[in-house]
């Protein structure tokens, strides 16, 4: 009994819990930065730079603007981080997930939304006009990527649920099992548009460069983060890193889950490799190649092009291809 609890605590805190999630997030972010730099012919920061940033932020003084609502201002980043870690625990990574429920896709979807909402609420509480504009842009970005995201999730759920009695599944465990029994989802021709759509959703959900309209440094002084400093800023930065891990791991679980060799270590290494490839495709390439989009461009892009890709997959899956 006590061993079970210890094991559970190990899962939550070490692997695949808090520690692993944070380390993976920092590494993926660092590698992404490095790759972007190399592609632009720069040397780039060290891979652990996000971690150094976090440590340095924690050592700095926290200044709370006089106009800010103190409690919300400090509480929002912390709650956002906690919510994100909880969401990460639902995602299986080389083995089963720590937490699971019959509808964990919807739970993850909502927890990710909650995390974004926390950054918005924090920005709102700071009382700065730059943060105000930033949060409105963040919200528009959220509306933009949510539609294709939902369509992708439905398409995968429908495909992986085709064996079950309900005909659709919202459970990541079922999706993983289905992929073990059949091929990984991405091997189905009909799902390739959805995978591409998901690759586009990832950078916008995280707020990476070509889609970082909410934090646009040159126009909005970091937008939602304008007034933040010290430890809360550090937590935001760390949340940002962890989001990279959560989204890439979600992609892996949805499209390339169920690949098992029987050895956990090898499985995890394979997954990490896949995460790296996803990071490269969805974040590094657009970052290195594109300039920042305008707000209305992001919205139009996601509601037409990306949604259309996801919808094609959904329709194809629905008619049984």
């Amino acid at each position, binding site marked *: 009994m006590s061993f079970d609890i210890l094991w559970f605590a190990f899962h939550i805190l070490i692997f695949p819990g*808090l520690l692993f999630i944070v380390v993976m997030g920092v590494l993926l972010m660092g590698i992404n930065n490095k790759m972007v730099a190399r592609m632009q012919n720069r040397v780039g920061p060290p891979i652990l730079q996000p971690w150094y940033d976090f440590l340095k932020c*924690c050592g700095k*003084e*926290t*200044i709370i603007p006089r*106009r800010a*609502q103190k409690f*919300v201002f*400090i509480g929002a980043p*912390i*709650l956002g*981080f*906690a919510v994100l*870690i*909880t969401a990460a*625990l639902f995602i299986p990574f080389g083995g089963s997930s720590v937490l699971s*429920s019959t*509808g964990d896709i*919807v739970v993850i*979807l*909502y927890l990710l*939304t*909650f995390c974004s*909402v926390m950054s918005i609420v924090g920005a*709102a*509480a700071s*009382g700065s*006009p730059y943060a*105000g*504009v930033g*949060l*409105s*842009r963040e*919200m*528009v970005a*959220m*509306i933009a990527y*949510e539609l294709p995201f939902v*369509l992708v999730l*439905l398409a995968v*759920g429908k495909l992986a649920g085709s064996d079950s009695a*309900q*005909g*659709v599944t*919202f459970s990541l465990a079922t999706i993983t099992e289905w992929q073990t029994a059949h091929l990984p989802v991405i091997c189905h021709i009909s799902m390739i548009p959805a995978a591409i759509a998901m690759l586009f959703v990832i950078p916008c959900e995280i707020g990476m460069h070509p889609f970082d309209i909410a934090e*646009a440094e*040159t126009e909005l002084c970091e937008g939602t983060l304008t007034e933040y400093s010290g*430890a*809360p800023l*550090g*937590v935001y930065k760390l949340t940002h890193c962890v989001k990279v891990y959560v989204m890439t791991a979600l992609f892996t679980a949805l499209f390339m889950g169920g690949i098992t060799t029987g050895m956990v270590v090898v499985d995890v290494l394979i997954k990490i490799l896949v995460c790296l490839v996803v990071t490269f495709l969805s974040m590094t390439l657009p970052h290195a190649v594109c300039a920042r989009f*305008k*707000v*209305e461009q*992001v919205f*139009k892009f996601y*509601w037409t092009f990306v949604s259309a890709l996801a919808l094609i997959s*959904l*329709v194809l899956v*629905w008619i049984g291809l």
Partner: protein
Amino acid sequence: MTQLFDQFYNFVGTDINHFPIFAIVTLFLGAFIIAIVGKLNKTLRNVIVFIVTIIPFLLMLSLIKPIMIDGGVINYWMGNWAPVGEWAIGIGLEVDALSLFFGLIVTLAVFIVAIYSFTYMNRDSSLENYYTLFLMLSGALLGLVLTGDLFNIFVMIEIMTMTEVALTAFRVDYDGALEGAMKYMVVGSLGSSTVLVGIAMLYSQLHTLNLAQIAASLPSHQNAVTAAAFAFLFIGFASKAFLFPFHPLEADVNAVAPASISMIISGVITKCGVYAIIRICYILFQNIELPAVSISVTLLGAVSCFICVTMAFNQHNFRRLLAYHSISQIGYVIMAVGLGSMFGLEAGLFHAVNHTLFKGLLFLTAGAVQYATGSADLDKLGGLVKKMPQTCALFLIGAASISGLPPFNGFASKWMIYQSVFEKASETGNFVYVIVVVVCLLCSVLTLASFIKVAQSVFFGQLNPEFNKPEVHEVPVVMQIPMWILAGLCVLFGVFPNFIQKYFLTPAATAAFNVTNYIDTMLGQGTAAKAGIQQTEIGTVSSIGCWQPVSWLWLLLIITCAVCLIAVLGSNDNKKHATALNAEEKVSDLVGVKQSGAGRLNNVAADASLKGVASDHLLSDQELIIISRDRTIEDEVLAGEDPKYENFFSGEKSEFSQVGGSDLFWGFKHDMRHYFNFQKDWHSGNVNDYTTYGVAAIAVTLVLAILFL
């Protein structure tokens, strides 16, 4: 405790059959007593209102055990006019679990509104009229959900509509109050008359008005007339639930009615429409299983949901915005009800009760804001979190619930709705339901977006100098208590959905499917079998079941605490922090004058540079306006500290604007401008147009019903 309950039920015995009529009569009696003695003494009046609203609530609570848990049905013949042969002549009350479910919603909301009104309405005159009308309205609502007679439903709807009209116009001095009431009267009468026509047609065919008897004889008397009657009844009740295309009316009414009445309109009156729709579709006509009915009802819900949530984006008035969201949520309910599956109905009922809780809470907070500041204009309010922290917290709970964020109740019920719609989609293989799921999920995000706009423009952002005075402060405790009750229920329902499902949703949904029981209780055993109505297979709820949040909520809590601890340990200690702030303040005090002078110059330079940036189209013009206007405010605040500088910038003072309000979603609105312009055109606010939409809706429904039924 159980012993106490047993003793109570033993003591009451069969007298429990009288409880429903007691509950209705208490409210009506209260109305008449208030009309007589209300003028005499304020305390006496409030005590009477408190007593006559809490008694029906307690009576309904005491009915939970015999009806919800033991699965009984209470029938009561008024004046003991029991059926002769198989003909029901008198008026009967019939309370099954479905009726009781809505009865509980009504009585709870009425009780809460009554407490809230004591303080909220204290600045108005002739309150005895308010309470008389309010209690009449409550009695009508309760009567509507408890009655077993079709004509009685019509009578209650009439009382409801007319008292509602009077209450909307209660604050006559408000801009548009009379206009809103007039619109409600015209369109509401249209809806009531439609119901009456439907009842007349049914009576001409079946020669009875008793719900159970109609249900028993309808299956063998299906023809074009009953199909038309269905259409009339459906659209009449849909107009009471303010579904598309009746939704503009609700916005117009809710913007002007007192907030307490807004809560009744959007929280309870719409629920009565939903109740009546469930009653006619599931019990009376038993036609919800037909694909045509199911798909059209679900689509009606989806359309209402989407149109209203996008309309809410354009609103500048807090309460209008809430009103549109209210219909959007009712759209969710109707969507789930239209599925015709056990799980779908449970989801719909759950969202219905949740809607009463969170929408009630939001309307009450809107009322509190209006009470404190005298304004509901999103463009004028702002920064109230400093003035009204409790109201802000309550609003955030309500907003999180309505946007369906876990762990609040909106998430639990919306989650059930997604599941049930998708389940239906896979069962029938109909792609329409997939579109409906996507609309559901999208509307959820849009709801969230629009509540963030409200949060930003009412509670966060910058405090409007107009409200920066000591008179603007937190509302009295008496007003807070009802809001905290609702907020607490929002959280409880979200954390323990299994409990609610087991004791409330499943019995209510089972009752809606159990037509034979409904008929037999009223007209004697075996009537239903004689009429050829088969005991319907009561579907089992799929294994998906409810959402069980408790386990990982603990986890979330633990992680939050851990992160808090790290953050506290990691950051500098508070003492140093405080001194730093003090020092900063001192410095800013010292250089305050210089700052505001030099700051202005800097700002001019910065504005120029901003414009330079904007010329590259990085910042939109609108955003630029927002930023520069906010700077003006900042300057004004600085200038306010030193009166010397007030003289210079008076010209801008009336031009107060801030981030928030209508500007927040300009990117979204810009891309969707054709859609929004179209919407703006046909939500004209003209009662003639509203009536036309209503008549068109009747015509379309009539054609559909005659073609497909």
